[in-house]
């Protein structure tokens, strides 16, 4: 029981540190913080979440690994 409560306390402290980090640590040279990303994610209409923006996963994989370019070159 005590061990479980100790584990929960440790997790809560780590969670608090994680969340605090997102408000303070800069993730790029422009001073962007992770909270800015969280805001950006939540404030806009997410085209992919609602299925509007066509993301052809197979085409993207081919592009990502350069397979499409190779095929086109051939």
């Amino acid at each position: 029981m005590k061990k479980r409560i100790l584990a929960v306390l440790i997790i809560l402290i780590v969670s608090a540190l994680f969340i605090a980090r997102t408000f303070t640590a800069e993730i790029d040279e422009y001073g962007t913080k992770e909270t800015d990303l969280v805001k950006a994610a939540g404030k806009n209409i997410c085209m992919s979440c609602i299925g509007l923006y066509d993301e052809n996963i197979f085409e993207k994989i081919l592009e990502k690994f350069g397979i499409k370019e190779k095929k086109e070159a051939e």
Partner: protein
Amino acid sequence: MTKNTSSFLNKLKNTGLKRNLIQLFFLIIQNPFISNFLSGKPYNGPTKTFCAPGLHCYSCPSMAFGCPLGTLQYVIKYASMIPFFALGTLSAAGAILGRATCAYVCPFGFFQEILYSISPWKNIEAKLPQKFRYIKWFNLFFFVLLIPAFGLAQGFCAYVCPSGLIVAGIPIIAANSGLRASIGITFWWKTALTIFFVLYFMREKRAFCRYICPLGLILGFFNRISLLQIKLNQNKCVACSACKKHCPMGIDPVKEVNSIECIKCGDCVRVCPVNKKNS
């Protein structure tokens, strides 16, 4: 205490209405901006910086908070970094409630329960084989982690999540005629999948939580140690299987209480004849 108050409190205790009221409370807290459905634009005030621990699309016009699963994928995809904010939120919720978050806080869990309760096709015995539970492990590693890690897409949101389509996609498209031009194959894929899910939710209780939801899986990792636990007294168990029959997750609470699959809804405690006799 009057007789009416006493019978209402008994009803709360015996029917699970208390949990439904808590679910309703969290649904309202998370969705205060109902009027945004008319404009078809998501709320974008200061609370959107924070995530609520349940599955509810952050593009939903009335939603006051972010979705932790969507945020997690967004940060991995666009910043290629560990999503500390979403992980912090989920581990805090997991440490306190564990998967009870699914039973009490998650709006999508509540939606499934409403669908099931009004369904003409519900079947308490309906249950896919145990191995179907591993779909959510695949969803977590492939759609939530791997696809965003390669910068390809927010995999789960884009291809699987029915919440995005139901609470965000359809209302936003209904209110914005300009966006209808963007409808393509992904939309129709998600629509077909969502129709299938909705029909299946009407047959099997909490089917999405049982087999599909990676958010529930993440919260389930904390289930054994979370503050909220269901205590089972093996010595008093009469092996009547009433708890197994009523479990919304289709598990045997005698063997799997507080396991990664248990959402700690308390239905097993409510239907237990030994517990009823003692109370």
